[in-house]
């Protein structure tokens, strides 16, 4: 219980020490940040750095991050790589298949804004044109440590979530993916 008491905010221990009071927000957010399960969604070169982050040297699993192959069991989606226009529809469909609360980390220059292919006829210039993004991670490709830093930033964002706001961290998330006209 020591770790829990250290990490949760606003804990009051009643005299006697057997019962602790905390906000449900802190407990729920602690659970959410400690076991973020991402969808393995490598599109291009950033996928290799993502795989290196799961491998032995950088070991993502010590942060609770454990890759899931199916969107139905995933909390977060790392969009790692260039989003081609042909791939946009499958990305939206997969995003909709993820259960709430869900988060997106745009990894790499291509997912942020088109990257080196900013003037290409067949590239979506940034995945935030089609789905809402929580953390943008620049780099071409970003190092595995940078990906871990992005997850840490996402954890800081999750800690600010409140139950009374619904399941989304931002109003954009509450509406789900953007509608394309």
């Amino acid at each position: 219980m020591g770790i829990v008491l250290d990490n949760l905010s606003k804990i009051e221990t009643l005299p006697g020490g057997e019962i602790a009071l905390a906000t449900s927000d802190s407990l729920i957010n602690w659970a959410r940040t400690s076991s973020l399960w991402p969808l393995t969604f490598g599109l291009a070169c950033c996928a290799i750095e993502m795989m290196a982050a799961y491998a032995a040297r950088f070991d993502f699993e010590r942060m609770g991050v454990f890759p899931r192959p199916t969107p139905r069991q995933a909390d977060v989606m790392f969009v790692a790589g260039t989003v081609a226009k042909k791939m946009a529809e499958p990305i939206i469909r997969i995003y909709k298949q993820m259960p709430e609360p869900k988060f997106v980390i745009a990894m790499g220059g291509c997912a942020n804004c088109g990257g080196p292919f900013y003037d290409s006829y067949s590239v979506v210039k940034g995945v935030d044109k089609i789905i809402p993004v929580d953390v943008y991670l620049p780099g071409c490709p970003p190092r595995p440590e940078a990906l871990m830093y992005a997850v840490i930033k996402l954890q800081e964002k999750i800690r600010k979530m409140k139950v009374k706001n619904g399941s989304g961290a931002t109003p954009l998330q509450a509406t789900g993916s953007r509608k394309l006209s």
Partner: protein
Amino acid sequence: MTKETSTAIKADQMFINFGPQHPSTHGVLRIALTVEGEVVIKARPDVGYLHRGMEKLFEARNYSQALVLTDRLDYTSAMHNNLAYCLAVEKLAGIEAPLRAQYIRVLVSELNRIASHLVFFGTFGVDMGAFTPFLYAFREREMALDLFEMLCGGRLLYSYMRVGGVSADLPPGWIEKCREFITFFKPRLKDYDTLLTSNPIFRSRTEGVGVIGAERAVSWGLSGPSLRGSGVNFDVRKNDPYCVYDKMNFTVPLGKTGCCFDRYYCRMLEMGQSAEMVLQCLDALSGAELNPGEVMAKGVPKMFKPAAGQAYAHVEASRGDLGFFAVSDGGLNPYRMHVRGPSFINVAILQEILAGCKIADVVAVLGSLDIVLGEVDR
């Protein structure tokens, strides 16, 4: 069983999408499978989910900027892409890189081949269900990537080569560290044999699966270990040598039957050959005649405008025969730059060999062809 119940159960055909998002880490490839029970009747690969229009973008960049885009083709072995591009443009302009630069080019190409085949080894194991080889492969790969980072600052995408040579010489202490890596790496190949090659589950899943005959392989234009696994002796480094490969001492491993296991084992043996070549290059680069030496040809201008003409250069990349067809009109931009991507041509054979396989064999065959979608879709 009585006569009435021994009639076969008629299974209707079902259409399944294999991809574009699937857990095996090959990228965004979709294979439209028509299956009857567990057996694949028809397979139609559908590519283009990573099409970035690179050939159009080459026409809108000057020659130095286009080099940066070439890294992103086969992203697991970026040095080969750089090398093929530089060779094609050097042929256009009639430039030759100095000897020290050529040895460095061969050295980093072979080191990158080791790193790329380690990715193949790890992901092929994961496809077959074995997760442990992935961790071992990436441990070795991290050491090779440390060497690259010490050399040029990049772990995965380098842009290290330049038209006329390489961008920077080997830093002090690099040669010793590289020797340490190779000394550590060579006994590991036996570990990999214990992990996967002699594993009975792995062998029964890959031997005899996805057999490609030699004549079919040549007709479909396969190249690289996928072609050599069928017994065809074609390696660009021996058939049409470039840089200093004609001075290197190495053998080309060949398979016998063209099944998945043969293609896998060709790559494992190639890693050993690449390690030998790295040592040969290190010896040459520390020798007196190349040390010190120029790493960049003289007289290559910053705003590079080769004379009008056409050139084709190809290299033996990790995935196969990677070629660049360059057309220049005398201007700052390439007029046309076509990439002959080996993975694009290798994927086409899936239409033929997947018919009759079981669904689980589809994963084995796809993994053994070792494609990278950056090269398929460009």
